């Protein structure tokens, strides 16, 4: 076996991948089940000249993470549900001020303190609408530890490209379980870095979007002195109260993500082409649903899996197209049906069946198969 194969927890794989993607700053606060991420960064960052700081709370961790990125350093914070709730206001600031960073949420079961050491997928809607106001969001949610590694790099790249915080979802099981990861050589991965302004300091408009709707914002300290605010602002970054400028900014923030949807929407399928029935699942439940496909296929049922890695934005056109001609969709979730509602917007409601589990335990493939059989009766 290659010497680059390592047995790693999901939480460890995230740290390794982030550092490989160029992350040199982490701010966090201890919380189960994400603490191994903070521990990993505290050990590894100084070794590559990076900085780790344990802040006084979750709010400060989000703020410091954005602050470091304003200074030009790729940054990450990690938490779980209760901490993710606390981070929401500053997450909105990061979106509004267009500051790239990665926000990791290793989900546990809520609401409130809930079941801290057990898996859940209860934060799906919170990742979409957790911070106030209309805003774009990109959320990636892998299904295996090797995917944690691969898509952490992808998530950081998307964040740098679009200049927006990206949320990386995991769950207790994925964060803690160990699998083999084949660590690539640095030259085997693609790393995206945010653009640096090409114009002179005199003509510089930090929030004037380029052709891709993404502004080219300089790191602090490089001579481009400008203002950053969470208020609606004009191209200079100054607060504005002009309705047309307010509207244009709001729409542009949404547009810069929408226009690259085909690029950033990652979707894996399994036994899909000839499938008559569909399991729609993401994260830890997607791999389990894949096993359920195996079980049901052996019985002769033509069923396949749709597994979005990019769970937000919800690529309506693409998913609608893929579901066209299928007979029924089963949405498998460790929540009460948060993603099911999205499917119901684009597919006849009577043919969407939720397979849900709410006891803080994983669903197993036989349970999924039973639900499918029952749904087809």
């Amino acid at each position, binding site marked *: 076996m290659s010497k680059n194969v390592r047995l790693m927890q999901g939480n460890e794989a995230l740290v390794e991948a982030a550092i490989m993607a160029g992350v040199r*700053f982490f701010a966090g606060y201890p919380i189960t089940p994400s603490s191994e991420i903070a521990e990993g960064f505290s050990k590894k960052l100084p070794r590559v000249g990076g900085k780790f700081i344990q802040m006084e709370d979750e709010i400060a961790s989000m703020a410091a993470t*954005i*602050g470091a990125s304003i200074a030009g350093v790729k940054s990450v914070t990690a938490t779980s549900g209760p901490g993710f709730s606390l981070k929401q206001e500053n997450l909105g600031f990061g979106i509004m001020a267009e500051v790239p960073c990665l926000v990791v949420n290793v989900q546990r079961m809520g609401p409130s303190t809930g079941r801290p050491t057990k898996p859940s997928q209860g934060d799906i809607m919170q990742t979409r609408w957790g911070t106030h106001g209309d805003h774009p969001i990109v959320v990636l949610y892998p299904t295996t530890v090797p995917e944690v590694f691969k898509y952490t790099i992808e998530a950081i790249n998307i964040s740098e490209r679009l200049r927006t915080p990206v949320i990386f979802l995991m769950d207790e099981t994925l964060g803690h379980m160990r699998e083999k990861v084949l660590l690539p050589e640095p030259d085997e991965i693609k790393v995206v870095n945010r653009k640096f302004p090409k114009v002179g300091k005199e003509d510089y408009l930090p929030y004037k979007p380029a052709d891709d709707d993404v502004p080219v914002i300089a790191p*602090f300290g490089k001579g481009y002195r400008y203002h950053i605010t*969470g*208020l609606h602002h004009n191209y200079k970054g100054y607060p504005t109260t002009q309705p047309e400028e307010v509207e244009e900014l709001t729409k542009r923030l949404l547009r810069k993500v929408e226009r690259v949807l085909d690029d950033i929407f990652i979707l894996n399928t399994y036994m899909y082409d000839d499938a008559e029935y569909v399991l729609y699942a993401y994260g830890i439940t997607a791999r389990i649903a894949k096993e359920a496909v195996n079980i049901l296929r052996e019985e002769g049922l033509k069923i396949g899996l749709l597994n979005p890695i990019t769970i937000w934005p919800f690529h309506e056109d693409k998913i609608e197209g893929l579901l066209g001609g299928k007979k029924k969709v089963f949405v498998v979730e460790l929540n009460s049906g948060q993603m099911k509602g999205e499917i119901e917007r684009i597919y006849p409601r009577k043919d969407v069946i939720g397979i849900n589990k709410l006891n803080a335990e994983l669903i197993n493939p036989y349970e999924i198969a039973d639900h499918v059989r029952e749904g087809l009766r």
Partner: protein
Amino acid sequence: MSLQNIKKYLRKDMFPHIWCPGCGNGIIMASLLRAIDALALDPDKVVVVSGIGCSGRISGYLDFNTVHTTHGRALAYATGIKLANPELTVIVAMGDGDGSAIGGNHLIHAARRNIDLTAILFNNSIYGMTGGQFSPLTPFEKRASTAPYGNVDHPFDLAPLVKSAGASFVARTTTFHVFNLQKYLERGIKKKGFSFIEVITGCPTFYGRYNKIGEGLDMIKYQKEHSITYDRAKNLSEEELADKIVVGVFQDIEKPEYISEYEKIIEREHHE
């Protein structure tokens, strides 16, 4: 005092500012700019981070690298900026509600960590922008829009609190004492470690009006008449100090600074 030397640090296209006639915030802003000018700091390397409230708008007016953050969190943002790029001089502006209520936790922890930031707390004893509600620094029995019968909360004595939390430099002064204000700001910026300068400033629109102190000038007179130095205050009783503003340097020490200590770890462990 002339504004000649400091006009160059202003973003002229951001004016007029939003502050009321008689507000003391402009005095603090001018003193900060004089301090920066006296220290001959490179504007490209100066960062001003502010929170939310009247004081929070200062960052927009200054031609440095500026961030107008969320309510109470300016110190946490500043911590990230400074730690990521220690060559920047990072100055943090906060209001009394901003810095001691919603952001109070960040204040004591920044002081405890002794990170090399200079925090200026604009203490006008009230929430101005939201309409004159009482803050953790509104004195006992004083009036505010949410304390129409007098404030039954007791205020923080913030400078000693930040001192005991671990800051390297702590001072309090008023917008009347402009020379001291500038000097304290210079000392705070120069100090390697966490510096905290609390400035008593007037809000004639709300605090002055609710408490019948008068206009801006009356409030500055009030500051003059009620101030007492830190050294003299040591010998006075609590009753004698009841309506006094204790001004001066509360702390000025050398101690290990957070980022320098962290960089020692990097020096030891960095093998890339």
